[in-house]
């Protein structure tokens, strides 16, 4: 009886600890991902303003920087919690691992430090710095954000594929911090994370403004935001697919038990098929709604359609995660949502970005670049001050940005502007 009580207590403590750090990580990741992607989007928007003089871009950049300030603050404190919690929840693990994988944590702290400083300069320097200097001050923060994501993911890569140390007689020896940090999974995991952060932010921002559009606020402000988000996504999503494939191969090569868990492969198969779907059935080992594509898993994982993929059941119980079903569900969610994103990005993105064509989501009465008023009116570069925009008056009054700087007086629209006017 006592032994049962002790074992129950041990399991529930472990589960509680996992639940707590899992919750903290998920919470932090939400804000951290936006903290990586938004600086890039703000810089692009502000850069577009510097290049074209269009105040819509500046208004977008300013609005995003205001939002970013709050997100960054919450992301920063949630990140502080995690570094604390590593010691509070997993002290024995940290005693053993801290000396091996501590280097990327320090470097991540350094990158975050620089980011915090330059974010402070950028967010509060709108009125203190000249536009060009202000834009330049945003570059270190975008770079540092990506760098800190890079460093911290090398630590996670080490947790997946541990290298750079030996355990002799129960003691950690022969520690090589660089080998630990640049373990076999470092390149694929870090690039997948950073690209994922940019993609999530791009889609997230675009979706916010898409909702605004569905509510009737159809103006240049919303269109430019969506265009920027989806253009970024259109460029990065194919890259992410490629990186995802490489990461899958890394998992197949170094973490066969994980591969079996996330692909839902219970028994070893030669020429293993890829399970599309296959949601784990609660309480049993069955799955529902599965379509199995023959040979595809072997092909993806090992480049040979007849390769043998080890099944989950063939691993020793100690090497099998008890969380295989949630891992499978999470993996299905990731792949499924990625496919949905790609589809929406390609269809809308093509419509928005193709030059000379009015986007499908646009109102039909927006002036096309060929109309004269775009070329000769000094305010023509600003889409919503053109007459058709004003006729939908409610949209500009309530959802337009706070006053951006008016177009420079006396500036004739250059031919370059008419090219960009497809975006507005």
């Amino acid at each position, binding site marked *: 009886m006592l032994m049962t009580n002790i074992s129950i207590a041990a399991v529930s403590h472990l589960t509680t600890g996992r639940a707590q750090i899992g919750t903290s990580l998920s919470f932090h990741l939400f804000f951290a991902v936006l903290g990586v992607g938004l600086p890039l989007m703000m810089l692009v928007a502000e850069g577009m303003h510097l290049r074209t003089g269009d105040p819509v871009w500046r208004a977008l950049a300013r609005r995003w920087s*205001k939002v970013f*300030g*709050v997100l*960054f*603050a*919450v992301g*920063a*404190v*949630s*990140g*502080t*919690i995690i*570094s*604390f*919690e*590593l*010691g*509070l*929840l*997993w*002290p*024995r693990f*940290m*005693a*053993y*691992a*801290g*000396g*091996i*994988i*501590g*280097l990327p*944590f*320090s*470097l*991540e*702290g*350094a990158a*975050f*430090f*620089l980011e*915090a*400083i*330059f*974010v*402070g*300069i950028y*967010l*509060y*320097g709108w*009125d*203190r710095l000249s536009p060009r200097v202000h834009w330049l001050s945003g570059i270190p923060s975008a770079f540092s954000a990506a760098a800190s994501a890079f460093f911290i993911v090398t630590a996670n890569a080490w947790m997946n594929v541990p290298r750079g140390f030996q355990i002799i007689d129960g003691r*950690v*020896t022969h*520690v*090589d*911090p*660089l080998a630990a940090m640049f373990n076999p999974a470092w390149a694929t995991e870090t690039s997948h994370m950073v690209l994922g952060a940019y993609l999530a932010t791009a889609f997230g921002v675009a979706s916010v403004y898409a909702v605004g559009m569905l509510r009737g606020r159809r103006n240049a402000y919303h269109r430019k935001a969506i265009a920027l988000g989806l253009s970024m996504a259109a460029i990065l999503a194919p890259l992410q697919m490629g990186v995802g494939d490489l990461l899958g191969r890394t998992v197949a090569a170094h973490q066969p038990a994980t591969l079996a868990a996330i692909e839902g492969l219970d028994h070893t198969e030669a020429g293993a098929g890829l399970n599309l779907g296959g949601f784990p059935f609660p309480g049993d080992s069955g799955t529902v709604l599965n379509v199995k594509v023959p040979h595809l898993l072997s092909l993806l994982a090992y480049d040979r359609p007849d390769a043998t993929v080890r099944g989950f059941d063939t691993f020793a119980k100690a090497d099998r995660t008890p969380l295989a079903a949630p891992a499978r569900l999470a993996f299905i969610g990731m792949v499924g949502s990625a496919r949905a994103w790609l589809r929406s990005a390609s269809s809308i993105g093509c419509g928005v970005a193709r030059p000379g064509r009015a986007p499908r989501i646009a109102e039909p009465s927006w002036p096309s670049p060929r109309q004269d008023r775009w070329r000769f009116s000094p305010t023509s570069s600003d889409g919503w001050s053109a007459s058709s925009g004003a006729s939908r008056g409610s949209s500009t009054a309530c959802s337009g940005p706070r006053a951006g700087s008016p177009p420079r007086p006396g500036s004739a629209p250059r031919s370059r502007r008419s090219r960009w006017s497809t975006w507005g």
Partner: protein
Amino acid sequence: MSPAALLAVFLGFALTAYALFAGADFGAGILDLLAARRAEDRAVIESGIGPLWEANHVWLIFAITILLSAFPTAFSALGTALLAPLAIALLAIVARGAAFGLRSGLDDQTGPRVHLSRLFGAASAIAPLAFGLVAGGLAQASSSRSVARGPVSVPWTSPFAIIVGLLAICLCAQLAATFMANRLAATGRRELAGRFRARALQAGAGSLVFSVGGLLVADTAAPRLYARLTDAALPLVVLALAGLALSLLAVAGRRYALARAATLLAGAALVWGWFIAQSPHLVGPLLTIHTASATGPALTAIAISCGVVLVCVIPAMFLLFSMFARPSQR
């Protein structure tokens, strides 16, 4: 200097920077709480915090990463022995950050904003209290004679620890008040500066009382610690007390720049005095800088990365501070 000792110096430097910079931030929150009815005071406090507070709090992450990578067994012992006060400090930091971030978009005097402000202020007081308890407990544990193996026990609820916690609160408030008074006087807002002067006097008196009180309590309740404080750390203790006294006199005489410098000096001396008084121990009598350190290659790698951090970060921090030293003229 051995890599472990060098990293201990970095750790001390990071903790001092955190205590001074983030201490001023916590103090600003405490003053915000105390100035509940004066919107003008609170607006001034908020404009002072805004650009700097993120950067100030990163020193804590820097200190934690040094600890976890260079002294992993000490980090682990800290997590087990001081789980409660560190968790409290953590929750306070979270609540503070979230409240500050969320309230910045709200209009003044509305219900949610008032609640968030109170949360912000209360959390700003709890965090230094918790860290002070941790510091006091660690100092007392380090001089313990017990050599029992097994989990370290840190007396973070002892009278000495409680006094150190209260000292931390007063010091934070004093840092913030002298900063604000100096800034306001420099831009000519004398009446406002006068209100922060009053707060600085109150906080300064509290700091002095609690530091002397702490020494007296150590004399009776933690004699071995008192011996360390008056032996190895004596110059720093004297410097701290002198700095606190000078700060009080300077504030009374409306010499705010001098008061700010004296408070900073006193704060740094207090942190280093604490560090020296318990060195080479980190957590308890057995875990020292040398016994708790990671392997050689790891220490070298961390030391190099710390050096790189300081070389990159310190100039950037100067840039940030110099940009926002004066309130915006527009």
